[in-house]
């Protein structure tokens, strides 16, 4: 088995299209030139397989192949971009000329194509689609279905799905540097409907990683997702109206870190700050969070959904400290925004596919642990909300206002977790919400590998995490005023 990503990328992308080293050289010559400040070619071959169980049977499956190349030429702040799903030289040459028209003049320079060795292996360059025989994938979903139905008699409907992706990318920079990454990604999801008397509720759970499908067989993972989905649905069957107004909120560890992603993450992306459209623009060195709050964006965690060996511009990912002890230290950068603001890429240049332009995006964004016992944090609150599971969120990076929607929450009364309340949206102001963090738990946890972030119509897999947090004053959007 080949384990060198560049060798895999050559075999799976360049060779079938008949593209030689000389062809790559000629393409770069067409694309880059004296009036072009930067250029790159992004080759991609992506295979995805999914299976869906519903009504207790394997109902559908899909296999999909996407491949193509995106060619980009940058002159100053101008970007020319064209892509092709045909990888033969004439189609790519046509795309190169279209992308390059942005710069209009200049002569192509000769560069030497040179491989950049991949020094890092955060995940194996495997093909997860082939990692488990098809009958075993089907059997896995059937076990998940049985576990969910066994867990509680009130379960009426179960939908389970498993998705495996092998994404091979090859990035050719204008300096001739050729780097590659083979990115496995697997995900399993369970969604159940529980009914009791006249009430119905849904619960969903799942997880994923950059790994083979046996990831779900280890540590009872798949079945624990089934039990968790059922627990959520039946908990919500009992939920009362959520409170409305500004109150003390305790956020659970792990996935509630979506708070960080929305409240500060997007606002610290380099493009918004270069353009001055972020509420955080020009605030490096200022206090944006309470003492003790340290937040990082770390693309180097082994096997995580948001991790990458190299980003989509060929830059090694890194662990970037965004906020240290409450002080804003850095933005997340891709090459374009780094060059225009006189700094370096932080390995955050990401794109949904070859048909999209890269931009600064998060990887795994999380807050480091503090010293408080989570129980001590809850005990410190007289009256408030304890929110432990969330759906998605959204932010307006200019006004700084952000929301995230709780899907499992409880009232806190006299320092004790009380009755469950219905899901509610929480809203706050990004630049000041972290200044209201008054207690930080010692229980840092990352999410289970389910996050997908959307920005300007492009989706990429990401991770979040945090310890249990107490926030003094967050607006809870319930109905009970």
């Amino acid at each position, binding site marked *: 088995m080949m384990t060198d990503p560049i060798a895999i990328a050559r075999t799976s992308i360049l060779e079938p299209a008949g593209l030689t080293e000389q062809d790559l050289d000629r393409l770069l010559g067409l694309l880059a030139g004296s009036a072009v400040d930067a250029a790159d070619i992004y080759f991609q071959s992506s295979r995805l397989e999914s299976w869906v169980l519903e009504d207790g049977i394997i*109902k559908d499956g899909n*296999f999909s192949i996407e491949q193509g190349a995106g060619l980009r030429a940058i002159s100053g702040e101008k970007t020319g971009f064209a892509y092709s799903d*045909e990888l033969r030289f004439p189609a790519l040459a046509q795309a190169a000329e279209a992308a390059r028209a942005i710069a209009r003049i200049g002569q192509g320079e000769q560069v030497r194509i040179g491989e950049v060795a991949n020094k890092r292996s955060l995940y194996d360059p495997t093909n997860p689609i082939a990692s488990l025989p098809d009958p075993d994938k089907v059997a896995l979903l059937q076990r998940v279905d049985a576990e969910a139905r066994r867990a509680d008699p009130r379960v009426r409907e179960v939908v389970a799905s498993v998705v495996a992706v092998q994404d091979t990318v090859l990035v050719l920079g204008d300096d001739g540097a050729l780097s590659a990454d083979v990115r496995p990604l697997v995900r399993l999801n369970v969604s159940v409907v529980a009914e009791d008397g006249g009430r119905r509720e849904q619960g969903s759970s799942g997880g994923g990683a950059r790994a083979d499908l046996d990831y779900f067989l280890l540590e009872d993972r798949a079945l624990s997702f089934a039990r968790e989905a059922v627990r959520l649905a039946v908990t919500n069957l009992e939920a009362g109206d*959520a409170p409305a*107004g*500004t109150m003390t909120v305790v956020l659970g560890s792990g996935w509630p870190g979506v708070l960080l992603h929305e409240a500060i993450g997007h606002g610290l992306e380099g493009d918004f700050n270069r353009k001055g459209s972020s509420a955080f623009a020009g605030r490096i060195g200022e206090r944006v969070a309470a003492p003790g709050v340290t937040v990082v964006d770390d693309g180097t965690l082994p096997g995580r959904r948001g991790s990458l060996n190299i980003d989509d511009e060929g830059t090694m990912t890194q662990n970037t400290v965004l906020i240290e002890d409450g002080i804003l230290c850095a933005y997340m950068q891709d090459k374009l925004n780094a060059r225009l603001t006189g700094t370096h890429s932080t390995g955050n240049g990401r794109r949904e596919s070859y*048909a999209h332009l890269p931009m600064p995006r998060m990887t795994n964004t999380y807050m480091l642990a503090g010293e408080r016992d989570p129980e001590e944090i809850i005990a410190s609150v007289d009256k408030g909300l304890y929110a432990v599971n969330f759906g998605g969120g959204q932010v307006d990076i200019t*006004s700084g206002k952000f929301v995230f929607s709780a899907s499992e929450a409880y009232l806190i009364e006299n320092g004790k977790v009380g009755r469950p309340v219905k899901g509610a949206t929480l809203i706050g102001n990004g630049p000041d919400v972290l200044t209201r963090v008054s207690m930080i738990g010692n229980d840092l946890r990352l999410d289970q590998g389910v996050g997908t972030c959307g920005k300007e119509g492009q989706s990429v897999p990401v991770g979040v995490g945090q310890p249990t947090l107490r926030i003094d004053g967050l607006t809870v959007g319930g109905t009970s005023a």
Partner: protein
Amino acid sequence: MSIAATEDTAERLARLKQTIEDLLKEAKRRGATAAEASVGSSAGLEVSVRLGEVETVEHTRDNGLGITVYFGNRKGSASTSDLSTGALRDAVKAACAIAEHTQEDPCAHLADAALMAAEIPDLDLYHPWHLGVEDAIEIAAACEDSARGYDPRIVNSEGASLSTHTGIQVYGNSHGFVSGYPTSRHGLSCAVIGQEGESLQRDHWWTSARAAADLDSARMVGERAAERTVARLGSRRIPTCQVPVLFRAEVATGLIRSLVSAIQGGSIYRRTSFLLDHLGERIFPDFVRIHEEPHLPRGLSSAPFDGDGVATRAKDLITDGVLQTYLLDAYSGCRLGMQTTGNAGGVRNLRIGMGDLDRAALLREMGTGLMVTELMGHGVNPVTGDYSRGAAGFWVEGGEIQHPVEEITIAGNLKRMYAGLLAVGNDYDYSGSTRTGSWLIDTMTIAGE
């Protein structure tokens, strides 16, 4: 210029139809008892201008095909972006391999042959815009200029973008149905940033149409973006309260989208809808009529047939406040023991009957309350209808706008909100496939200070 193939549209359509025929033949050769396939090919140009300078010029070209094979009542599907002969064969092979492991599902089959669209009306959806890169840049720049020149408080910009796309979609199945048609879509959008004191606000506006001549002018889009941005400056919070809420037209469409997803066949048979068992029931006040018009000429969602090849037809979703139909495709129809409604792939061009009240009259009708112009987040529970979302808008007293509002949530339950709809205005003023005026809802909970 665009790098799209210069091939004639009729030739491309014929070639894509041939691709479908080839796929269906290959599926049959591999033993499939039935099959269906769709293929699409599109090309376009997108330019963006920021602070008067070109920011991006993107040439887009997308191909894709999907095939589903049936072996009796077992199915499998595959898709690819590669339309070469070898890739087509691989896709069929992959779909057949999947079908070896899926299980018998009595509803896994094509729609009845008798339901296939017999006539394909020309819905006037294809109006290519032969636009050079320079011209596109000029229009986007003019749009941004009118936004930046609108008010001195507009201090920054996220730019203006112009896009133009043409494409062809073809669908066919083993009933012998193969049909397709070309479409076009053009759009212009602009987003700017305003400042007043410490407060920064951003807002945007857009226009979208099948024909370039139907787009709003660059100047109008720019000015509207600026007007909306400036109006938000000085936003503040309001105390927690329960008041009437006016959803301005462009956000009222979201309330119709929630209705559509709740009456989709999949939500009904999976029991994930708050409108389960509501067919024939009154869910709105009796003045409400919501009508689907799939054959609307130049409509942004118009289509002569649905994703199963079934003829689309005009119908009421709501008449006199009563739910008339679910939105079914062949599969969900079979699951519910009902006939497909020609809604495979969704709903196409909705209109709600509009009343006599313009926006000023609606505000007077509301008296004191909140007018919402932006919603944030995904806080709608489809199973229960519980609704809780971030919002921005304007505080209204005595029918007059008092000040802009932000960092609040609005909450309620969709069933109660629909029943509590007091009026629909005649103030439709945006380009989208759902046409509605603003909605005045009797009461919701606002969470704020």
